[in-house]
């Protein structure tokens, strides 16, 4: 999700300790005005769809379909949000089940990828592994293919082993996609943590694994947080596998469920928009909460030693 990446980038200047005034003077006033103007235009273009989505989600249905479009004077309603979670006849809606599925699938697959990927990255960083470069390239190469290319073979394999239309199936495939990513990201972070910490700990009486757990791991936490957020975002947003490999409402995740709202004879755009807002929110909040770690993670290399 592009928005969360922007989140990381936009907090970055906070780390830049040059006082703003001096920076402006250094570049010249004319240029800064132009910069602000261009950035404003860019922001409007980028943010308009998001604003429109939020607006649509709180408009009455008649205002949604109004021509010409109503920007400001419309009636505000929370009805669409209620529809996202509550079925028309009462009880839980199919969408709310889909959201819950998304939480489970994204959370578990990210945890799995982290638990597998971090120790692997540590091993690749610290030890002399035979043909290390080739192995790492092979691991990365599994990410070369876009999901659409592999979804058919995966579908056939899953049908053989009975993983079609199961949450476990989605969790496994997402983890499989996130492990290489985690290994590559985390190897960079581990490389940045001097091996001497572990050496010192081993001389102090710890085993290698204890040294990793007690000394290297705490230093890796920002990196792990950053990596996990990216993995989480991938799993949360993933659409292709989700729509091909699952079909029943009780298993489906949010992306195909929301897409499924569009396509009937009439489309309830208010509901679609409300569901989209709910869908986008957790990722935004999560990225916001860990934004310091994201920045720390991204800049870790620059501040070490």
């Amino acid at each position, binding site marked *: 999700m592009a928005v969360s990446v922007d989140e990381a980038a936009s907090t970055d200047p906070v780390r830049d300790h040059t006082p703003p005034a001096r920076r402006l003077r250094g570049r010249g006033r004319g240029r800064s005005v132009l910069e602000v103007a261009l950035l404003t235009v860019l922001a409007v273009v980028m943010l308009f769809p998001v604003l429109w989505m939020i607006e649509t989600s709180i408009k009455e249905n008649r205002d949604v379909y109004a021509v010409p479009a109503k920007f400001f004077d419309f009636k505000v309603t929370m009805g669409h949000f209620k529809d996202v979670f509550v079925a028309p006849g009462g009880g839980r809606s199919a969408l709310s089940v889909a959201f819950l599925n998304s939480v489970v699938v994204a959370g578990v697959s990210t945890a799995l990828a982290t638990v597998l990927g971090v120790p692997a990255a540590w091993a690749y960083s610290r030890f002399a592994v035979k043909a290390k470069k080739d192995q790492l390239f092979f691991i990365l190469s599994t990410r070369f293919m876009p999901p659409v290319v592999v979804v058919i073979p995966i579908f056939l394999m899953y049908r053989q082993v009975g993983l079609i239309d199961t949450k476990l199936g989605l969790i496994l495939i997402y983890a499989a996609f996130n492990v290489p990513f985690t290994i590559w990201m985390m190897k960079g972070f581990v490389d940045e943590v001097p091996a*001497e910490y572990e*050496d*010192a700990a081993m001389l*102090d009486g710890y*085993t290698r694994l204890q040294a990793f757990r007690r000394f290297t791991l705490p230093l890796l936490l920002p990196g792990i947080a950053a990596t996990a957020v990216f993995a989480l975002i991938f799993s949360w947003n993933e659409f292709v596998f989700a729509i091909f490999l699952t079909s029943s409402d009780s298993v489906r995740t949010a992306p195909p469920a929301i897409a499924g709202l569009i396509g009937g004879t009439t489309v309830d755009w208010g509901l679609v928009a409300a569901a989209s807002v709910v869908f986008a929110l957790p990722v935004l909040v999560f990225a916001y909460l860990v934004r310091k770690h994201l920045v720390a993670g991204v800049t870790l290399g620059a501040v070490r*030693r």
Partner: protein
Amino acid sequence: MAGIEVTALHKRYPDGTVAVDHVDLSIGDGELFVMLGPSGCGKTTTLRAIAGLERQTTGDIRIGDTLVNDLPPAERDIAMVFQFYALYPHLRTRDNLAFPLRAEGLPKAEVRERVDEAARLMRLGPLLDRRPHRLSGGEQQRVALARALVRRPRAFLMDEPLTNLDAELRADMRTEIKHLQGELGTTMVYVTHDQVEAMSLGHRIAILNKGRVEQIGTPLEVYDRPASLFCAAFIGSPPMNLIEVEVADGKLRSQGGLVLPPPPSLPRDRRLVAGVRPEALEVTEPGAERSAPGRVVSAEWLGDEVIAVVDHGGRRDVRVRMPPTVRFAAGAPVGLRHTGGPPPVYDVSTEELVA
């Protein structure tokens, strides 16, 4: 406390690099032993093998009476100080010091006692509650040393612990380390590529080159009689003048007419090089007694001494160390005279000391 015995150490890294070719060391109990050598000669690798952080390809390492080849670092009972101090960044000084003790499972009271003692020795009192990033380089270094001491290990290993400090602080810390080692009487292996550090610290110095030991000796031995041309060129600043000589009329004579007293039992029929320290030469009036004619090419006035570069018709210009009171103009003709006893003489082809 214990001595360290390294026998026929050989280390080949998985990528094929031979970092240590053949090293024998016999380090006495309570000795401050310095390993000196240029970058990449295998000092760190040797030290890490002793620590158990790197497994040697072949060869034996004994600490005390124990063969430690297969012991993990934790069981070798040694402490190491790294060039990059490796203080745990998320721990305050106090906890950095306490960590090795907690790993041993010592009772709390004893941990506190030992930490306080180490802190007192290294004067860390006011720094105990700070984290490493709020300590200066010298302070971090003292904490790293203190962390090595708290455990009262059988030996200290130091890998260029002062490289990151500025010159003045380095001199202070050098004195401090030497004093501390003398006080504790713990065996210490100290790695450096700085010859001044090596000369001023070591009881004995091992000079390493390309994974081999070139010479082991006291600082004076190493300075007076370098065992090979490599050592001769490595020790001293400026280093020895290596002057090609021939034996004639019972004297060593250089191409440019410089006459040196011969050491006893010189071999015949070999091309020889004499190693002459800059302070064993002097610049004289042209034509002075026993002097060879020469010409001052340039001179560096260093305040307490002058290093004159003299062309005396040999293949290479020689460097002469003179008191700062001498006066001569660059380019002026001078005399060059040898003043000391017989210089060490090397065989050009084997590069080794022959007399």
